[in-house]
């Protein structure tokens, strides 16, 4: 009995340490598994309303090599069609809010893809189902992310990764960095490649872009 408690403490400590080491899957198999650099043009109509987002997705080298190889046009076209078809069920990985309320997207009119160096670049225009006015009280926010966090999608590290087209001069853009809950980070790190993070995980790692136009006061 004298010995029983000591080995148990020791065993407990040892197992804890080993468990941390051993049962923590290498990040090589943990999420995310692909990276997309995004560029977004927020398009305004002549009346100062936002009509939609023009998105440009630059896939990482490995995803590009794996899916379209050298970039045979027929393969690119087939892949683009497949991606857009599959993304329809996921809202094109794009979430738009206006004053805190979700704004629906209409079906993107056209998607095109080409090789940008050795990486695949896909562009499409996602129109808002109803144009909205990004006022100070009710700003327009959007986030482009993979809800399962299989893919990490971040704005390209350039000043003009978000551009406003046809916007009134008072409009301002703000990009908010993600602050994931440590629990979400652990979840992502311990997920295997074949497992899904569930639909709440990706939002934790998503950048949020906020657009306000102080001069637009219409509701």
């Amino acid at each position, binding site marked *: 009995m004298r010995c029983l408690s000591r*080995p148990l403490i020791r065993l407990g400590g040892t197992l804890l340490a080993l468990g941390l080491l051993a049962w923590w899957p290498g*990040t090589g198999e943990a999420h995310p598994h692909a990276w997309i650099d995004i560029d977004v043009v927020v398009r305004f109509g002549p009346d100062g309303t936002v009509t939609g987002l023009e998105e440009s997705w630059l896939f990482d*080298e490995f995803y590009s090599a794996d899916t379209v190889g050298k970039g045979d046009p027929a393969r690119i076209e087939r892949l683009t069609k497949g991606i857009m078809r599959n993304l329809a069920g996921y809202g094109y990985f794009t979430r738009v809010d206006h004053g805190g309320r979700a704004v629906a997207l209409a079906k993107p009119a056209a998607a095109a893809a080409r090789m940008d160096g050795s990486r695949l670049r896909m562009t499409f225009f996602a129109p808002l189902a109803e144009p909205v006015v990004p006022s100070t009280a009710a700003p327009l926010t959007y986030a482009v992310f993979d809800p399962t966090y299989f893919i990490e999608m971040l704005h390209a590290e350039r000043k003009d990764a978000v551009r406003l087209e046809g916007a009134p001069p008072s409009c301002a853009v703000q990009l908010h960095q993600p602050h994931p809950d440590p629990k979400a980070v652990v979840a992502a790190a311990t997920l295997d490649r074949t497992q899904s993070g569930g639909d709440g995980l990706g939002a934790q790692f998503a950048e949020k872009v906020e657009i306000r136009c102080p001069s637009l006061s219409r509701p």
Partner: protein
Amino acid sequence: MSVSVPPLTRIVLLGVSLLVLGGVALVATRGGGDHIVAWVLSEQRQFHRALAADLHALDGSGSFAAVWGLIGISFLYGLFHAAGPGHGKAVIATYLLTQSCHLRRGLALAAGGALLQGLTAIVLVSGLGRLAETLPGGSALAVSWSERVSFFLLAGLGLLFMIRALRGLWVARSSSAPLQSHPLHDHDHAHRHEPGCGCVPAPSTGQIERAESWRGVAGVLLSIGLRPCSGAVFVLALANLLGLSWAGFAAVMAMSCGTAVAVAVLAVATVQARGWVGRWCSGSDPSGSLVLVVALAGGGALFLLGASLLLASFGPVHPLRF
């Protein structure tokens, strides 16, 4: 043995461990966590970018510097990232903690598993991929089926460990006297127990256990080796595309070496830890039921991991995976 460690030392050790754990927990949950998270995520991204950049540099110049750059970064990728496929370390640690405590075997399993993993990636992506070039996604299909076999073996291995543990516990229950033979161990050849192995020496018990031993070793090797790591698959795909297959092979082998080193460190730590526990309680727990209980739990965990991975692999496919 336990008497020789002064209680003060033990208390100090325990205190230090608690402090370290507490510190890690504090950093992870408080402000510092954000930075660590950002660093880990960007580091993973950087590794992939560096691999791609090195392959392109090699494509452009073909210089020795580029070759060594690629090999170096691949080795580091294997060392830090993979440290085994998701389940590799768990398998090795559980095996060494509960089934066999031979250091040499642990090191051989670490090296063998990592090497086999690299070869699997090469065969599936470069070998089969070439054959199935006309069939898009052919190598991806081969990879996913190889993974499924690996998950199935993982679950089977967990089940095997559990059965062995239950059998051992049954024997321990039914005989009130201390066990003379240790049913848990892979009893191979001369059955030399290294010092600090933490089990009661017993004479070798022949062919049946030797067969069981090989079953365990094969299970560990195959369940690790049949799942190619995603980094290796990616590098091979890009290398093949650039017409640099040989560079892809070299990179994957370097990754395997890195993985082997990381897993070997874990193997040494496991054998060492088991030695401590064994020495500590050799007087009070001659039947080794502690190890048996751990084996039961470890086997159960491996089974659950394997089963859940197997199920997930048949689950919905990500919309951008083709």
